[in-house]
C-alpha cells in the first residue's frame, strides 16, 4: 500500500514536467492533461484513505523510504514519506480542492494563450504541496515548503507583463524567504540538538530536551509559519498576491498553501507542548492576525482583497487554535478543512462574478447581480453563511470549537483570547455581509459605466479576448460556463455539510487524535454559552453591515472614510512601514556600500599603486642627466659604504 504514496506526488509532478517542457504541441490538450493528473492523484488519495479506514486507529500511519538524499556523516537526509491521519486529511483536501480548481481553470483561463503553462504551474504546486505534507522529515518538508513558494511565485506573477503582478510575485517570494530562514534555522537547531531532523526521532526526543532549545526551535518554526500563512508581521504579501488569476487565489492563497503554517505547527505539536513560551507567542500571533485581517477585510473595496483579508483572519483562528496545544490542534485542522471548502468556494464565486463583469474587481461597481448569475449567487451565499458561522453550517462548528478552546486555555489568557476570537467572529460577519450586499444586492451600479479595460493594471487580462470591441463599454453580467459552476457547487456542498459531518460524534477528533492527541480543556464558560455568544455577535455583525450597506444606496466612489478605514485600506500601513524602513533603508545601504566598495576597498589598492607611481616619478627626477650629479651619488654612495662597513666593525 505505501508504495502508492509516491504516486500522490509523482502524478502532478509528471504533469508539471510534461506541460512545462513539452512545447506548443501540448497547447490544445495541456489543460485536460493537467486536470487528469490532478484527479489521478485524488483517486490515489481516496484509495489510500479507504485502506487507512480499514485499519484501526493506532497503526494507520504508513511510511515509504524512497532513497537516501544527502548523506554526510551525522547528517543523513532521506527522501521518505509518512502518511498518517494528519497528512491524509491534507492530502484529501489538497487533491480534491485542487482537482476542482483545475476544472474551474479550464473555463476560467480559456482565452489565455499561455494556459498550458498555467496548468503546468498548478500541477507543480500540487506536487510541492503534497510533498510538504507527506515528508517524514523537516528537510524534505522544507523542499515542499519552498516548492509551493516557487509555484505561488510563478502563479502570482503569471501575467508577468503587468508590473504590479511581477512586483507582487517578487514580494511574496521574498517575504516567504524570511519565513524560510526561520525554518532552516529551526532545522539546524534540530540537527545540533537531536543529531537528526526526521519527525519520529525529533518529536520523540522532545520531552528530554532543554526547554530553551525547544523554545528557540518553536519560535523559528513560528517565524516560518508566519511567512507562509501570512500572519503578522509577515502578512503583507497576501493582499498583493491577489494579482494572480482567481483560481490561484482560491487554491493557493485560500485553501491550501497558506494553511501550511498551521500544518507545521500542529505537526511539531510535541515541541510546542514542551515549550509554553513558544506556544504563547503562537497564540498571540494568531489573535493579532485574526483581528488584523478582519479589519483589513472590512475596508477593502476590491472583492478579492476583501476575501484575502478574511483568509488572513481565518488562518489567524487556526494559528490561535494551534497555539492552544492539544486542546486546539484538532480544531485548528478542522477549521482549516472547512475553511478550505468555503473560502475556495467564495473565491471561485468572486472569480465567476469578475468573469461576468469584464474582470471588474471593485465591489462598488457591482450590485444586484443575484438575478444575473443565480448559481454563483447561491453558492457564494452558502459559502458566506458558512464563513460567518451560521448555525448548522461548517464554519459554525469549527469556529465555535476554536472559540471554546480559546476560553478553555484558562486564566486571563483564556479570557483575552476567547473574547478576541468572539470579536473576530463579529467582524467576520460584518465584512462578509458587506461583500455579499455590495455584490449581489442593492441597485445595479454597473449600468451605463465602463469597466476596467485589460490595458490598465489591475484588470485580469484573461479578459483581453473576451467581450470583443467595445466590450468594456458596459458589462453584460452572465452566468459562467459549467466547467466553472460545477466546482463551485461541489465546494458549496462541502462548505455546508463538512462541519456537521465532522462534528457529529466527534468523528474528526477521533480521527486525528492518534497524531495530535486531544484533551478537553475545562472552559470557564459552558459550550452552550459560547455558542450563544457566537450567534449573538454574528447577528450584531450582520445587522451592522446591513444598516450601513443594505438600507441606503452605496456610493460608487468610496468615501474618504475614517482614519481607521483609510489605514485599513492601506493594510494598516504595513506596506508603508516596509517601504520606509526596509526598501528605502535597503536602497540607501546598498548605494552607500557600492560607494564604499568603489572608493574605500578599491581605493586603498589603487591608492597604493598611485603612491608608488608618484614615488617613482619623484625618484626619476634624480636622474637629471648631469654626469657630475651621477658622480656625486657615486661618491656619496661609496662614502656611505665605507661608513657602514666601519660601523659594522664598530658595533
Amino acid at each position: 500500500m505505501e508504495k502508492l504514496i509516491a504516486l500522490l506526488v509523482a502524478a502532478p509532478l509528471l504533469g508539471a514536467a510534461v506541460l512545462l517542457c513539452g512545447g506548443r504541441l501540448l497547447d490544445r490538450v495541456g489543460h485536460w492533461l493537467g486536470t487528469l493528473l490532478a484527479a489521478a492523484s485524488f483517486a490515489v488519495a481516496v484509495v489510500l484513505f479507504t485502506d487507512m479506514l480499514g485499519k484501526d486507529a493506532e497503526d494507520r500511519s504508513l511510511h515509504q523510504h524512497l532513497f537516501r538524499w544527502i548523506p554526510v556523516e551525522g547528517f543523513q537526509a532521506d527522501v521518505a514519506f509518512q502518511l498518517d491521519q494528519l497528512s491524509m486529511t491534507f492530502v484529501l483536501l489538497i487533491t480534491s480542492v485542487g482537482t476542482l480548481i483545475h476544472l474551474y481553470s479550464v473555463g476560467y483561463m480559456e482565452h489565455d494563450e499561455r494556459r498550458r503553462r498555467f496548468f503546468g504551474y498548478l500541477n507543480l504546486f500540487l506536487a510541492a504541496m503534497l510533498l510538504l505534507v507527506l515528508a517524514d522529515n523537516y528537510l524534505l518538508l522544507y523542499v515542499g515548503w519552498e516548492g509551493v513558494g516557487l509555484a505561488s511565485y510563478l502563479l502570482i506573477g503569471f501575467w508577468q507583463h503587468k508590473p504590479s503582478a511581477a512586483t507582487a510575485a517578487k514580494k511574496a517570494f521574498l517575504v516567504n524567504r524570511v519565513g524560510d530562514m526561520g525554518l532552516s534555522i529551526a532545522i539546524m537547531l534540530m540537527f545540533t540538538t537531536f543529531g537528526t531532523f526526521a519527525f519520529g526521532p525529533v518529536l520523540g526526543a522532545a520531552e528530554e530536551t532543554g526547554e530553551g532549545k525547544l523554545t528557540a526551535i518553536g519560535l523559528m518554526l513560528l517565524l516560518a509559519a508566519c511567512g507562509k500563512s501570512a500572519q503578522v508581521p509577515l502578512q503583507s504579501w497576501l493582499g498583493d498576491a491577489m494579482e494572480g488569476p482567481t483560481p490561484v487565489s482560491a487554491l493557493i492563497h485560500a485553501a491550501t498553501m497558506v494553511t501550511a503554517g498551521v500544518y507545521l505547527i500542529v505537526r511539531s505539536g510535541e515541541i510546542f507542548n514542551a515549550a509554553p513560551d513558544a506556544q504563547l507567542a503562537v497564540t498571540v500571533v494568531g489573535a493579532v492576525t485574526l483581528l488584523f485581517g478582519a479589519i483589513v477585510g472590512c475596508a477593502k473595496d476590491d472583492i478579492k482583497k476583501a476575501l484575502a483579508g478574511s483568509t488572513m483572519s481565518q488562518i489567524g483562528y487556526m494559528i490561535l487554535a494551534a497555539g492552544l496545544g492539544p486542546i486546539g490542534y484538532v480544531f485548528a485542522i478542522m477549521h482549516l478543512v472547512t475553511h478550505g471548502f468555503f473560502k475556495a468556494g467564495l473565491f471561485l464565486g468572486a472569480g465567476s462574478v469578475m468573469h461576468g463583469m469584464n474582470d471588474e474587481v471593485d465591489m462598488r461597481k457591482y450590485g444586484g447581480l443575484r438575478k444575473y448569475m443565480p448559481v454563483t449567487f447561491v453558492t457564494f451565499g452558502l459559502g458566506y453563511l458558512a464563513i460567518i458561522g451560521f448555525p448548522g453550517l461548517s464554519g459554525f462548528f469549527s469556529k465555535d470549537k476554536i472559540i471554546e478552546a480559546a476560553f478553555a486555555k484558562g486564566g486571563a489568557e483564556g479570557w483575552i483570547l476567547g473574547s478576541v476570537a468572539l470579536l473576530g467572529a463579529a467582524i467576520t460577519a460584518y465584512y462578509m455581509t458587506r461583500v455579499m450586499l455590495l455584490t449581489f444586492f442593492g441597485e445595479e451600479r454597473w449600468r451605463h459605466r465602463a469597466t476596467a479595460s485589460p490595458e490598465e493594471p489591475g484588470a485580469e487580462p484573461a479578459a483581453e479576448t473576451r467581450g470583443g470591441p467595445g466590450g468594456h463599454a458596459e458589462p453584460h453580467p452572465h452566468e459562467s460556463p459549467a466547467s466553472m459552476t460545477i466546482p463551485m457547487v461541489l465546494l458549496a456542498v462541502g462548505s455546508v455539510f463538512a462541519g456537521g459531518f465532522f462534528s457529529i460524534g466527534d468523528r474528526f477528533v477521533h480521527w486525528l487524535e492518534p497524531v495530535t492527541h486531544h484533551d478537553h480543556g475545562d472552559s470557564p464558560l459552558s459550550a452552550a454559552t459560547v455558542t450563544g455568544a457566537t450567534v449573538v455577535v454574528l447577528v450584531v455583525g450582520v445587522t451592522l453591515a446591513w444598516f450601513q450597506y443594505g438600507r441606503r444606496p452605496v456610493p460608487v466612489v468610496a468615501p474618504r472614510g475614517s482614519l481607521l478605514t483609510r489605514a485599513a485600506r492601506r493594510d494598516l500601513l504595513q506596506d508603508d512601514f516596509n517601504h520606509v524602513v526596509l526598501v528605502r533603508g535597503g536602497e540607501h545601504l546598498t548605494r552607500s556600500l557600492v560607494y564604499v566598495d568603489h572608493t574605500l576597498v578599491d581605493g586603498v589598492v589603487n591608492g597604493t599603486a598611485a603612491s608608488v607611481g608618484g614615488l617613482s616619478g619623484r625618484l626619476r627626477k634624480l636622474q637629471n642627466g648631469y654626469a657630475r650629479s651621477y658622480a656625486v651619488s657615486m661618491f656619496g654612495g661609496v662614502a656611505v659604504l665605507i661608513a657602514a662597513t666601519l660601523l659594522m666593525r664598530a658595533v
Partner: protein
Amino acid sequence: MSFPLLTATAVVPAVGAIATAAVPAARRTAAKWLALLFSLATLALAVAVLVRFDPDGDRYQLTESHSWIADFGVRYELGVDGIAVSLIALTALLLPFIILAGWHDADPLETTSSRWRPTQGFFALILAVEAMVILSFEATDVFLFYIFFEAMLIPMYFLIGGFGDRAHAGSDENATAQRSYAAVKFLLYNLAGGLIMLAAVIGLYVVAGNFSLQEIAQARADGSLDMATNTERLLFLGFFFAFAVKAPLWPLHTWLPNAMGEATAPIAVLITAVVDKVGTFAMLRFCLQLFPEASKWATPAIVVLALISIIYGALLAVGQRDIKRLVAYASISHFGFIVLGIFAMTSQGQSGATLYMVNHGLSTAALMLVAGFLISRRGSRLIADYGGVQKVAPVLAGTFLVGGLATLSLPGLAPFVSEFLVLVGAFARYPVAGVVATLGIVLAALYTLVLYQRTMTGPVKPELAKMPDLRVRELAVVAPLIALLIGLGVYPKPVADLVNPAVEHTMSDVQKKDPEPEVEAAK
C-alpha cells in the same frame, strides 16, 4: 607503470591549445571545431578518471611521480582525492559548454589585419587554461601546484584583456581602456598574491626540505616535522593570502567584478566557475593539510571574513546596474559560503563546501551564459535596457529563471544541497555565524528576483520586440546544465559519496571532530 591518466587529462587540452593556435587564419570554423573536439576528449578522459577512482580506496589515487627539478626537491607528482576528482570533472564538463557558448565571441572585426588571428588564439587560450587548471587540481607537489597556479594567470589575462565583451567591444577606445584595466587588475592582484605565496613556498622548503604534499603532511602528522608556531602561521598566511585573492574573499575581491564585467560571458564563467575554484580547493588541500595548527588559529578571523563576503557581496549585487557585475558580486557572496564551509571544520561544512564548488560552477555557468546570450542580443549590459523579455523570448527567460533560482539555491536544485550543508556545518560549530549566513539566502532571493523582474517581466521594451529566442546552439549549452542542476539537486548522493572520504581525511589532518548532538535522539 600504468597509463598516466592524470597527465593525459592535462596533456590533451594542452595539445589541443597548440593545435588550435596552429590553424591558419582563414580556417576559423575549423579552429572552433578542433577546440570543441579536444575539450570533449578531455571530458572523456575526466570521465575515465571518475570511473577509475575508488572513493573508499587510498587517499590519493592514480598517482604519478617523476623526478623533475632535483635541486629544488621538486617532483612531478600527481594524485587525486575525491575533492580533486569532482572538480576535475566539473572543469572538463564546463569547458565544452564554454567553448560552445563563446562560438562567435572571437570572430575578428573587419578592421583587424589578416595576420591577427583572434579566433584561434581565443580557443587556444581557453584550452591552455583548462590544462593548467586541471594540473593544479592534480598536483600533489606544492611547487608543481604553484607553477600552474601562477602560470594560468597569463592565458586568463589575455582572455580578459584581449577579447572584451561585444557589448562594448569594437574600436571604442574607452571600452578598450576599461578592458585592459580589468585585465591588469586581475593579473596584478593574483600576481601579488602569488608572489607572497612564493615567499611562503620557499619558506616551506627551508623548513620542510621538500615539496611533496604527502611527505610533509605525513611528517606533520607523526610529529617528525614540527614548525615553530610563528613560522607555521606566517607560512599559512602566505599561502592563504594567495588563495583568498584567487577565490575572491572580502576585501580582496574587487578585481572580480571588473574582470567578469569586461570579459565575455563564457570567459566570465571560466573565471568564476573554474579558475577561482583553484583558490578554494587549495585552501582545503594545502592550507589545512600543511598548516593544521595555524588553520585552527586563523579560523575565527577567516570565518568573519567569509561572513562579510556573504552579506557584503549580496548587498552589492543588489546595488548593481550591470547584469554581469551583479552575477560577479553574487559569486563573491557564494565564495564566502564556500570559505565558511571549509573553515567551519565540520564534515558537513567541508563536504558542503566541495559540493558548493561544483554546484556553484554549474549554476553560475547557467545564469551567466544565458545572461551572455541576452546581452549579445541587445548589445548592452545595463539592466535598465531590458524589460518584458519573457514575452518575446520565453525559453530564454525560462532558462534564465532556472539559473537564477539555482543561484538563490532553491530546494530541488543542486546548490540548495551544498548551501544547506554549509549552513548546518557552520551552525554546528559557530551558531551565530550560521544564523548570519542564513541572512544570505534572503538577500540572494532579493538580487536574483529583482534582476529577473527588471529584465524579463513587465511591458516589452520596443528595442527588444524583434529579439529572437534561444538558438539551437545556445539551447544545447543551457539545457544540459539545467538538467545537471536538477539531477544533482534531487540525487546528490554520488557526489557526496565521492567527496566524504576525502573530507574525512582532511578533518583528521586538522584533528577536528564533528560536534556531538546534545540529545541522542531515539533512532
